[in-house]
């Protein structure tokens, strides 16, 4: 009987001890130096699409995230997995108080987070800002790996990236010769041509397309200024991917066809125009976004054959 009581006390003592000790922490290199993070953080807030996407890929459901560009909630392609998530700001502006109210263990932020914001956020919780060069072929992969490491789930992220690359490889093997393609957003006074270095265009490249901006995008910019209607022939490639932020894809395509300059493009006459979701194609990055974009490309190729 006595021994049993001793055992109980000992167990309680160990439990109390482990509660007071700091949980196992790891250190992570970020753009703003080394940060200490719990080994298995559970209360996560993401301030960037790739951070949210990577967390969900890794099987972590963040408590809060910023809204997608031009929307009230997270991007449509993530809304199901993200579930009932708290919106703590827009891509341009984070509501610091809303972040603090969630009492996060870790904050996953964009590589372009301004230092002033970092100073505020790092008082709330360790803030992870990946030190990744933007607009490179593998920017999104490197960002996702940092987030995976911060969450202690690198394996899941590595698997997802490998799967994406394998899928892109399969798609590119099915291309006969690399067809040229442009990704644009349409406006009645012209087209915004997206830079070949942005996320979705790197996936098009990996899937065997020759992404072509017609020399319209200035160095280091995500897209061109609205291209004059007289110069639309610069994006008259084998394929045209037409991204729409809000309206239904078909509706936006019909609206663009109202313009005689768009309507007479060879690619429109051949009907090789693929309407795609702008929230996914021009605003998102991340492993799940990559998978969804490759699905779009695959179904476009299937319809074409």
């Amino acid at each position, binding site marked *: 009987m006595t021994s049993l009581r001793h055992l109980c006390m000992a167990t309680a003592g160990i439990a109390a001890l482990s509660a007071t000790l700091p949980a196992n922490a790891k250190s992570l290199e970020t753009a703003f130096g080394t940060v200490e993070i719990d080994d298995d953080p559970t209360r996560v807030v993401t301030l960037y699409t790739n951070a949210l996407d990577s967390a969900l890929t890794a099987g972590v459901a963040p408590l809060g995230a910023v809204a997608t560009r031009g929307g009230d909630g997270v991007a449509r392609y993530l809304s199901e997995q993200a579930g009932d998530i708290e919106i703590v700001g827009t891509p341009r502006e984070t509501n610091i108080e809303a972040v603090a109210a969630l009492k996060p263990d870790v904050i996953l932020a964009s590589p372009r987070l301004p230092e002033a914001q970092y100073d505020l956020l790092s008082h709330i919780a360790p803030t992870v800002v990946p030190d990744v060069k933007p607009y490179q072929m593998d920017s999104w992969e490197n960002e996702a790996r940092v987030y995976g490491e911060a969450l202690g789930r690198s394996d899941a992220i590595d698997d997802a990236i490998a799967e994406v690359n394998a899928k892109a490889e399969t798609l590119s093997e099915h291309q006969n010769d690399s067809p040229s393609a442009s990704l644009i957003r349409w406006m009645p006074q*012209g087209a915004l041509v997206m830079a070949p270095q942005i996320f979705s265009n790197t996936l098009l490249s990996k899937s065997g397309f020759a992404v072509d901006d017609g020399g319209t995008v200035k160095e280091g910019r995500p897209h061109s200024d609205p291209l004059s209607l007289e110069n639309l022939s610069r994006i008259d490639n084998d394929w045209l991917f037409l991204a729409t932020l809000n309206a239904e894809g078909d509706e936006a395509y019909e609206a663009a066809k109202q313009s005689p300059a768009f309507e007479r493009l060879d690619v429109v006459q051949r009907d090789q125009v693929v309407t795609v979701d702008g929230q996914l194609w021009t605003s998102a990055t991340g492993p799940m976004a990559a998978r969804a974009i490759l699905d779009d490309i695959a179904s476009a190729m299937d319809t074409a054959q």
Partner: protein
Amino acid sequence: MRVLTHCLSFGKPRSLIGLWLGLSGLLAAIALLSLLYGAGDVGPARAWQALQNLGDAASYDSEAHFVIAELRAPRLWIGLVVGAALGIAGALLQAVTRNPLAEPGLLGVSAGAAFAVTLAILWGADTATLRVSVAQLGALGGCLCVLAAARLQGIGSDPIRLILAGAILSGLLHSLSSLILLYDQHTADEIRFWVVGSLAGRQLDDLVPLFPTLGVAALLTILLARPLAALALGEHVAIGLGHHPRVVRLLVIVVVALLVGGATAAAGPIAFVGLVVPFAARALAGPDIRRTLWLCLPLGPIVVVSADIVSRLVVPPSELPLGVLTALIGAPVLIGVVRGRRLPTL
């Protein structure tokens, strides 16, 4: 600025017909240039060739023909109509408020029209016809606010204070439009297209619904020219000559709303045209509204179409919004008028 005015007026008033013909000739030359120059690969030489070979099937250049007929010509037509409408509207607004700075863009009339269009798009209106009448109603609202401000103690007699009141109204309407943009992302792209004044991408179909109301406005303008000239001599003189100042003012406001609303529906808000054009017209033909209105007809399109040509040429392969160019032309004129030692009253 007085030097400029002096150079332009040569002392004695010249024959109106001579001036009018000269300006019309200039406008024809600028119109031709607007068909020849663009942001694209069809340069002036090739466009000139295509214009000369219009009926000649053998040397038909489909690319050049398309660019001229489908892209440059519609811009030209819309520019002609919008320029004339804004020039006349500016002259009328200045006459009725007796203020040389009264300008539809500065006083919030254009902003009223644009705000009304924003609301209409928000509530799902997408036909060009509806857009015109909505814009004209919005412009009328803006006009009435201006007139109310002009009647307030001390504002009507002080041109600068009227401009300040107009700037506040413009600011308010712009922020309301931005608020709608923030809250309703669904229509954001379409509205963004409307709140930037531009001739690019506008179709001839957008122009047709304007004609009935612009016709009415033209007729009223012809009828109102005499009473307005009388009003310029003072209220009592006008009454003595058998005019009804209140009726005249009300009708002028309606005409301004029809003109500015129509122009805004076709091309979005374009500022400063209504300031620059009557200013130049007065410098050329003197203060009589019956003479300045005639000159506004060619002068308005001259300003708008030449600004549009420049907007295509400065940042190829893209284009600048037209409103940016007209502001570049108009702002120095505004500063010049305001800085003049004696602000001319009308």
